[in-house]
């Protein structure tokens, strides 16, 4: 059973980690979680991001969610926001595409243009 005591260990490890890299968020991933996004699989898309990021221990990547953004025909929609770079919006996402975006864009810094539906602010 998981108990609150387990969190103490996590806290100690995380504090060490934060000391090393300063606790900065390098990339923010925003998953559209409106009604149509959810109906089209946004929950699985977000879950896959969380899993892939945990598996690579990318503690400088933040996954968050938002309501609908008016791109209903391209759901699930994901924004990738990186400091100093134009925002990239990926559309029609699914778990396999998420895995590719994590490897290509988040780890290697190359936009996956096949899945990108918009760039810029």
């Amino acid at each position, binding site marked *: 059973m*998981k108990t609150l005591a387990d969190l103490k260990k996590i806290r100690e490890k995380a504090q060490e980690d934060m000391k090393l890299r300063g606790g900065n968020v390098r990339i923010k991933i925003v998953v559209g979680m409106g009604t149509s996004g959810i*109906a089209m699989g946004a929950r699985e898309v977000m879950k896959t991001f969380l899993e892939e990021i945990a598996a690579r221990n990318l503690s400088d990547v933040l996954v968050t969610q938002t309501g609908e953004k008016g791109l209903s025909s391209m759901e699930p929609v994901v924004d990738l926001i990186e400091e100093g770079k134009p925002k990239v919006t990926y559309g029609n996402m699914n778990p396999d595409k998420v895995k590719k975006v994590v490897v290509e864009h988040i780890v290697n810094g190359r936009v996956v243009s096949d899945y990108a539906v918009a760039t810029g602010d």
Partner: protein
Amino acid sequence: MQDISLHLLDILENSVRAEARNIKVRVINNVPKNRLRIIVEDDGVGMDSHTLAKSQDPFYTSKLEREKKVGLGIPLFKQNAEMVGGSFKMASEPGFGTVLTVDFTLDHIDRMPLGNLKDTLLNAIIGHADVDYYVHLIYRDKAKEQCFYLDTKAIREELGDIPLTYPDVIEYIDQSLFEGIQNTNMEDV
């Protein structure tokens, strides 16, 4: 939506949009009463009686910027509950938040499954890590009652300045929810 947990995720998103800071989610699987009940209580801005009535109308949305004036989240959830002998109740008042109570008849052949409750709760908690969630799962049958609680406030207190979005914390919450859902027999409802 294919299952109840996806509707729940949609409803939680509504609470966040209503500026809720605290959301209480209860899922009660009451076998003797043949009922599955979902209760979502938030401390968001709340709705006046007009908006409350309108929110159940598919051709209404509170999203002003929207071109298509539809809002299907609440009406579909309501329909899916009422279709199987359940009920859908919302109580709200500006300044007092919103309480939603949805009942499903457990053994109705057309009832949608509860689905992946774990991923819904994990998404909501991590996706809105500035909101506090209090999750309470209850299983009741003739012989026993089993409960599971998860309180992000308590987790935050243990973590200090470490955010809920830290990878190991996400894993911790995921694992806690997994155990809680198993212990309350909610994985296959």
